C-alpha cells in the first residue's frame, strides 16, 4: 500500500525509469530493506492499470528500449489526498508481547524471563540504530529516530508490565 505511494511520490518529482525508481526508493527509505525489482514492476503495473501513472517508450541508441514512467493528474490527486489523510492507529501491535506474558502466567512459567530477554533484545536493536544514525545521512538518522522512539514505547510497556506483574498474575489466576 504505502510502497505504491512512496513510488508515486518519487515520480511526482520527475519521470523516471524503473531502475532509477528502485534506486531512489532504496536511498530514501532504507537500504536495509531494498525493494525487489519484481515488486517495483508489479507495483508499477498496478499503478498503470489504475491510470495513476503513464509510460513513454524512449528509443535507445544501443540496447533495448526503456520505459519512462510519469505520474498522471489522477495519480497526483490520489497522492495528495493520501498525504493529508491521517493513518489508522493499530492498537494491537503489542499483541504478541502481551500474549507471551499472559501465556507464561497461564502455564505457571516465569514471565519475567521473557520480559528481560525482550528488553535486552530491544536495547540491542536500539544500540544498532543509535550507531547507524551517527554514521548515516540526515534522512537515515530520522528513520532511525522513528524506530528508536517506537522501541522506547515498547520498553516503557515492558517496564510497567514487569512492575505490575503480581497484580496481573492474581487477576489471571482469579485470586
Amino acid at each position, binding site marked *: 500500500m504505502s510502497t505504491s505511494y512512496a513510488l508515486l511520490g518519487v515520480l511526482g518529482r520527475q519521470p523516471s525509469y524503473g531502475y532509477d525508481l528502485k534506486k531512489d526508493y532504496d536511498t530514501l527509505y532504507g537500504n536495509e530493506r531494498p525493494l525487489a525489482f519484481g515488486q517495483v514492476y508489479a507495483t508499477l503495473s498496478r499503478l498503470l492499470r489504475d491510470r495513476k501513472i503513464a509510460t513513454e517508450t524512449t528509443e535507445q541508441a544501443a540496447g533495448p528500449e526503456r520505459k519512462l514512467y510519469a505520474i498522471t493528474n489522477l495519480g497526483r490527486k490520489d497522492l495528495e489526498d493520501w498525504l493529508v489523510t491521517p493513518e489508522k492507529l493499530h492498537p494491537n501491535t503489542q499483541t504478541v508481547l502481551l500474549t507471551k506474558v499472559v501465556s507464561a502466567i497461564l502455564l505457571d512459567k516465569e514471565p519475567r*524471563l521473557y520480559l*528481560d*530477554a525482550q*528488553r*535486552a*533484545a*530491544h*536495547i*540491542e536493536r*536500539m*544500540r544498532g*540504530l*543509535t550507531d547507524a544514525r*551517527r554514521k548515516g545521512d540526515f534522512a537515515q538518522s530520522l528513520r532511525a529516530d522513528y524506530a*528508536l*522512539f517506537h*522501541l*522506547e514505547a515498547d*520498553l516503557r510497556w515492558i*517496564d510497567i508490565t514487569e*512492575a505490575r506483574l503480581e497484580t496481573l498474575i492474581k487477576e489471571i489466576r482469579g485470586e
Partner: protein
Amino acid sequence: MSDSGATNRYVLQAKNLEKSFGLTPALRGANLDARQSEVLAIMGPSGSGKSTLLHCLAGIFKPDGGEVWLDGQRLDQMSEEERTRLRRTQFGFVFQFGQLVPELTAEDNIALPLLLNKVNRSEAYTRARSWFKRLGIEGMEKHRSGELSGGQAQRVAIARALAIQPKVIFADEPTGSLDSLASEQVMELLVGAAREQGTTVVIVTHDPRIAAYADREVVVRDGQVTTAPRKQQAVR
C-alpha cells in the same frame, strides 16, 4: 581508538556489595565489572539501588560488605583521605543537575579540577578553553554558569569531568532534565570524548535511548545486578 584502547582488563570491579541505610537494604550482593574504555549503562526501577551502587563504586559511600576494586586496588579499604585523592585524580562525575559552581564562569568551572590537581593556571585555562568549540558554545567562556541553559550546563559539566583525563566517569541520570535533542548532544559528547580518551563510563539511566549509547547494559533489581540472558558481547 576504542579498538586499540580497549582491553579485557577490568578497570572497575564490584564483588558482592552490601549496603543498608538504617534498616533499608539498598544493595544485597551486587556484582559488576567494567573494562577499560567500556561504556556501561546501569538501568532498573526507581529505588532499586542504582545510585547507591554508583556511589559505592566511586568511593563516595563505603559499602557495609563486599569489595570494590579499581585497577587492582581495594577502593573500599582505603582511608577517607585516599579515596578523596582518588576521586579528584582518577574519577569524573556528572549528575542530573550539573553541580557547576553558578557564580563561576563556564571556563572557571572546567579549569577548577585541573587547578585542584596542581596544573598551573595558564595551562589549566588553555585546556579549559580548548573545549568550547566542541561543546558547541564558543564565545560563552566568560558567561557565569548559572546563565547557561540546562543542556549547555550539562555539556560544561562533562568537559569538567573529562578535563582531568580520568580513568572512570560516573554519571547519574546525566540527561534526566533535558529534552531529546539536548540529551543526544550530551551523550554524543560524553561517549565520543570518553572513547577518544579511553575512559570508562558508568551511566545510571532509566532511559533506554541513553542506554543504547552504551556498549552494554545491566539491570539493578532489589539491590542486585542482573545481566540479561544473551550472547556475550564483544567490547567495541
